[in-house]
């Protein structure tokens, strides 16, 4: 009886805190309902839907050309790759023959998008673990890519550059030169990233061994992209289901086996090198030709079901179109990488501290519009 009294007196109590929807570490309007005991996290429950726009429902009334521009607004950091996914799905359904030039340009722009997304992630990752200066260094390099995009596509973030059948415009005359400049510039800056953050002892202490995700769990939770690859799960869509011009280049799929936050960090840094090498291989070999094949003004897909996967900066984006033969899809589902990656947050963050949660979440690289769609 007496022991019980002592127990109630010194009971450690779990309590709830709301992380978000306005919180610096949630990168958007994600709300996490944390159950914590002191500093230790007992449960993480994401609360979504703060910017749900029901893109899937909107797609059911839009034409296929119009759907492409909605995908810009999902994972806005890899907008071009999202565009590409829908375009590839439509083109495959129509069995259109796409010019080589288009494929190569799409791949180059896709990889540049990936680098730009990872640059932003690197800056924000540093900021989440407390090194504010990384943010500006990451953005400096991202800015160069944004300028390239702006010159060729006309916009910096929501490009809508791909259309079913090719590209909206041909590449700008300056494109090749600018990309080459960027490659030279970025090759000197990437080692700096390592010196500033990767090697830093505090950063390593914060990330090594934190938020461990085993390979089995990664597959079971549907993790994809760098999150899955850091756990040793080979899930690069570019390797397993190559699309566009990706089969023309050689690149390594970056795999790590540790599955912790540091491994996820390293995978992304390595991926920037790989993407850079892909761009380097392709930039001198853009074939001449048309930038677009003409399609009907009203695209009607044959009745049937179509699935197209691409590898965005965050992982595997799937576009599942059910067509009944009309001008808009009967049902269109986006399998977004962030959604699956978020679902494993509770699994890997429990038992860590608040600081661990923030670091873990940073390496999951969540983009909330991608999750909320």
């Amino acid at each position, binding site marked *: 009886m007496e022991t019980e009294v002592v127990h109630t007196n010194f009971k450690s109590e779990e309590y709830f805190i709301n992380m978000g929807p306005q919180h610096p570490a949630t990168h958007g309007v994600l709300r996490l309902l944390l159950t914590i005991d002191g500093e230790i996290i007992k449960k993480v429950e994401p609360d979504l*839907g703060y910017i749900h726009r029901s893109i899937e429902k909107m797609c059911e009334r839009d034409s296929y050309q119009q759907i492409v521009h909605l995908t810009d607004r999902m994972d806005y950091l890899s907008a071009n790759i999202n565009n590409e996914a829908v375009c590839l799905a439509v083109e495959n359904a129509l069995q259109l023959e796409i010019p080589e030039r288009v494929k190569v340009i799409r791949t180059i722009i896709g990889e540049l998008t990936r680098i730009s997304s990872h640059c932003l992630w690197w800056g924000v990752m540093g900021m989440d673990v407390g090194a504010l200066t990384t943010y500006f260094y990451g953005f400096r390099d991202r800015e160069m890519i944004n300028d390239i995009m702006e010159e060729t596509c006309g916009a910096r973030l929501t490009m809508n550059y791909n259309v079913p059948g090719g590209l909206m415009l041909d590449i700008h005359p300056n494109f090749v030169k600018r990309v080459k400049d960027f490659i030279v510039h970025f090759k000197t800056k990437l080692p700096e990233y390592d010196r500033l953050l990767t090697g830093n002892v505090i950063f390593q202490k914060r990330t090594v061994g934190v938020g461990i995700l085993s390979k089995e769990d990664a597959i079971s939770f*549907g993790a994809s992209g760098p999150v899955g690859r850091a756990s040793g799960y080979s899930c690069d869509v570019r390797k397993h289901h190559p699309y566009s011009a990706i089969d023309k280049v050689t690149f390594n799929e970056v795999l790590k086996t540790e599955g912790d936050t540091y491994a996820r960090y390293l995978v992304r840094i390595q991926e920037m090198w790989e993407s850079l090498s892909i761009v380097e291989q392709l930039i001198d070999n853009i074939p001449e030709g048309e930038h677009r094949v003409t399609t009907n003004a009203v695209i009607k897909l044959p009745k049937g079901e179509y699935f197209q996967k691409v590898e965005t900066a965050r992982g595997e984006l*799937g576009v599942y179109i059910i067509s009944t033969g009309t001008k808009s899809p009967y049902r269109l*589902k986006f*399998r977004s990488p962030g959604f*699956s990656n978020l679902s494993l947050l509770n699994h890997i963050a429990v038992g860590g501290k608040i600081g661990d949660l923030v670091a873990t979440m940073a390496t999951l690289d969540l983009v909330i519009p991608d999750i909320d769609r």
Partner: protein
Amino acid sequence: MTKEALQQLIGNWLPELEFTEEESQFLNIHVSPQNLHTLMSQLKSNPETQFDYLFCLSGVDWGEKLGIVYHLESTSKRHMVVVKVTTEDRDNPILDTVYDIWATAEFHEREVFDFFGIRFNNHPNLKRLFLTEDWVGYPLRKDYEDDVNMILY
């Protein structure tokens, strides 16, 4: 494994399965709601199929029926299959959860519940994911009507 071999193999497990391949790049398996869980756990655990990666789970409103489409891939054997299940009960559709087979299904099923109103047996935390708790109706159903935010076709 090729589509034919898969069809051969899986067809032996349950007699009532329907296979289609037309209008799709994958092998489609239609299964009745009663046998869904059995088939799914078989697909995951059978050493020859090993579908351990559920990469897409979509709810579909087929008009009269409500259904779910599961896209499965095997990470070791690299073959894919699509499993479809439908229920005709539009007012109170209930299906079995596959959360215990693939953990990712927890969130995907919550999403389906949110937008299509399909309930899942044995789901650990079945509640609205995106919409608020007091939302009336299931927006991605074809018969959903919203007078405020009208969607014009």
